[in-house]
């Protein structure tokens, strides 16, 4: 959907309301995904569609309703529903007037070739990995190739109009033997830049090297976390600690600690939608421009992110991290960038007397949010490091550890900055990390 069409639908919806103020969010697009398993394509899907969400405000009362049909009758019905909801509210004294028109930075995240990728293109893309696994005895692969083009427009009754679009493509492959698994993934806004052979090679190599794993005792180890494993942990920083509302309500580990040194000297973390690997849009769901925010500088907690409401309470300007209003979670960092170091993964391994190399963690989740304590299982390639070399695969283990402790024990930071997707969504830019005294709390027999 181009900008003109988005503007036409938005303005038509706004014209139907008698509310004091109104805002619409129009979003959607087309996405396709080829899912393979057992060395064949098992699921192959396409979806397209858009929805419009209307927010109306009468004084300090607000309502919201949405529809995926854009004819006049459907839009009027959505507007009317939002108005009825608004009229029955109690006044919310913290509700802010809608923002005036804004200026946005430019982020070019749309590539036509990705939007035009076809089912046949996807089948061709996954064929290399599938055929290699078919021909190499004992290998089975599962994974996805997806492509999507998404559009977001936001308009309000004060004349604000924001529009942007983005594409993304993902190739993710898991390769299994009867006693091991390996995994690799690449994602890019430009489908032509997906490293098909690199993903296949890495996933197969990890699966083969993970065969006949041995059990090691749970306990404290030095670990070398590949970027995906780092991401599985670092993603919790944004959710648990660096949101303005959680901070103000005392529900964040950082509450009352801004300006204090909370992590090691070598830790620098931003929220930066403008970073070349980030992806994302230049405005938030209130129509406010996204800003780069330094979250941690040399281990010192510098800032949390804000929407307009939390910013007002703090006496600062919004950083452009608002979600659709009203919401219960408050602003959250969506584009965390962990600043890289200068060493390679190989140098980290070479410097390790005894440790564990981790490809990925599975199903990480919070144990204690105020201590940033999380748990999760290793997955898809876990190896023992002895005397500077990877010596053998090990059976999977559960980690239960505090991110505060982890980020105070980072010994080395990789230069291999990668964009990673999180489990059940999310994404961030992170390097590999070498961490001392990392706790594995229990094990498995596989």
């Amino acid at each position: 959907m181009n900008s003109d069409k988005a503007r036409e639908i938005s303005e038509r919806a706004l014209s139907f309301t008698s509310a004091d103020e109104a805002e619409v969010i129009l979003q959607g697009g087309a996405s396709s995904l080829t899912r393979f398993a057992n060395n064949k394509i098992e699921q192959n899907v396409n979806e397209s569609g858009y929805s419009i969400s209307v927010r109306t405000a009468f004084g300090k009362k607000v309502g919201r309703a949405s529809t995926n049909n854009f004819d006049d009758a459907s839009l009027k019905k959505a507007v009317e529903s939002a108005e009825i909801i608004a009229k029955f509210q109690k006044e919310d004294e913290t509700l802010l007037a809608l923002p005036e028109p804004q200026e946005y930075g430019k982020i070019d995240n749309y590539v036509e070739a990705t939007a035009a990728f076809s089912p046949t293109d996807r089948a061709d893309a996954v064929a290399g990995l599938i055929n290699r696994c078919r021909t190499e005895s004992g290998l089975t692969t599962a994974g996805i190739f997806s492509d999507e083009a998404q559009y977001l427009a936001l308009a309000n009754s004060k004349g604000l109009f924001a529009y942007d679009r983005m594409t993304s493509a993902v190739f993710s492959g898991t390769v299994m033997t009867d006693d091991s698994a390996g995994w690799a993934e690449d994602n890019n806004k430009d489908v032509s830049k997906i490293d098909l052979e690199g993903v296949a090679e890495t996933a197969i190599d990890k699966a083969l090297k993970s065969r006949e794993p041995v059990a090691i005792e749970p306990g404290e180890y030095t670990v070398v976390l590949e970027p995906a494993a780092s991401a599985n942990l670092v993603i919790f920083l944004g959710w648990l600690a660096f949101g303005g509302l959680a901070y103000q309500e005392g529900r964040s580990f950082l509450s009352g600690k801004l300006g204090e040194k909370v992590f090691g000297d070598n830790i620098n973390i931003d929220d930066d939608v403008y970073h070349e690997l980030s992806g994302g849009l230049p405005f938030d769901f209130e129509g406010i421009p996204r800003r780069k925010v330094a979250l941690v500088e040399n281990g010192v907690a510098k800032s949390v992110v804000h929407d307009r409401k939390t910013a007002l309470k703090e006496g600062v300007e919004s950083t452009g991290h608002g979600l659709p209003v009203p919401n219960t979670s408050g602003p959250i960092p969506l584009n965390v960038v962990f600043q890289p170091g200068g060493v390679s993964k190989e140098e980290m391994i070479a410097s390790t007397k005894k440790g564990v190399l981790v490809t990925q963690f599975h199903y990480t989740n919070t144990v204690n949010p105020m201590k940033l304590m999380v748990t999760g299982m290793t997955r898809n390639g876990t190896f023992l490091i002895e005397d500077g070399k990877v010596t053998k695969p090990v059976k999977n283990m559960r980690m239960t550890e505090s991110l505060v402790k982890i980020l105070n024990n980072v010994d080395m930071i990789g230069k291999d900055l990668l964009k990673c997707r999180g489990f059940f969504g999310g994404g961030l830019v992170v390097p590999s990390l070498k961490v001392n005294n990392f706790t594995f709390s229990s094990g498995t027999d596989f």
Partner: protein
Amino acid sequence: MRDFTQLAIDTCFAEGASYADIRIIFSKREDLTLRNGVLGSVNKSETLGFGIRAIVKDSWGFAACGELNAEEIKKTAALACETARASSTLMTDPVRLADEPVYDTVWTTPYIIDPFKVSIEEKLGFLSKIDAILRKNPKIKVAESTMRFWNERQWLATSEGTFIDQNLMRSATGYSATAVENGEMQRRSYPSSHGGLAMTMGYELVKGSDLLENAERIRDEAVALLSAPVLPSGKRDMILDPAQLALQIHESCGHPTELDRVLGSEANYAGRSFLTLEKLNELKYGSDIVNLVIDGTIPGGLATVGYDDDGVRASRNYLVKNGLFVGYKTNRELAHVAGEERSRGCNRADGYENLPMVRQNNLCLLPGKGSLDDLLADSPGAVYMHNNKSWSIDQLRVNFQFGCEAAWDVTKDGKLGQMYKNPNYQGLTTEFWNSCDFICGPEEWVLLGVTNCGKGQPGQTAEMSHGCAPSRFRNVTVGIGN
């Protein structure tokens, strides 16, 4: 709708399909959250769209569209077939669907009060009463109470001649209180933390609930947890209340018995399963008193439907009988792999826009004998854990670790003693379920909903219920990291 569905099927067959189906779905939702006395979130939505599945050259293709008209149906049907042809280039085994009778029928969720006809004012009034009770203590920094209603009208037509018109109504309500003081944060929620009270019912669910009556207790427990000690690490006999046990069942019984996971379909995402095919009818999954059934027919269950998205009539089946693992969750495509002639009716999709796949049905742990008082009296020294706060399990569904909102010692005279904050426990699935030696009886058995079950790529969310009664597990590792 029959004109649209026939057009879709005819178009698919003109494109070379050997099978096709179409689901047209009109969906209404209403979500209300009151947060600290004001509207925390709200949305009232309506969506209409359709999804078409086609088998061409023995392979699947699927396409969905949010615009329902003849032109889009023809275009989407053609895309589904083009996608199936692309799938066929890497095909190994032809898709094979288990037989199912042809139905031309109507089915609806039984409900009394249409929640979409109840005024916003009445709903917010109810939530406001809860909110006022929860915020009476200033240490409660966040009080959230919610109501959600969703209604799906589905028309499923298959090229075999089935046409099913189904009307599903679901309602949910619940709340949580978060207490904060001196860098400590503790939360209690009621009646459970994954969707609250959630059932296939109308607004009578809210009217008949005991939410108001429990608000004061929940508030006070959240505040009390702030100053409670952490649960010490060690090995303990453990009793789980239904709100926690429901998620234990969901994660360690529900997902590993999904046959598509067993066969590797989820290997790149949510993982596989330790319940591989050779373990069927061989593995002692739990102790003799452990009986687990999937039940698409149970009144009020969130996954209770007349027919699944394969057009298979809902049924009730054992997965674990007297401790023995005896069955999987299946769909028409996979039933034959489990040696069965008919699907168990577990194929469901998230809305019109997603492909149906094997999902958890309502999965219930059948009741045993005795009241909770009997269980406590029989369990001096045990720890009693309440309501889920954290969950994690490995990709084969073996090593799990759960955190709960609160725990109590069971005293030597069978009462609840010391309260603990941040309780958690860890175990291995079959070892854990084989240690189960007490399941309370029908008088303690409740059906609790899970409304946020994620699976699949693209990600889909599904809802289902788990029925269970308080149960005891022996010698469990608790207090990890405390």
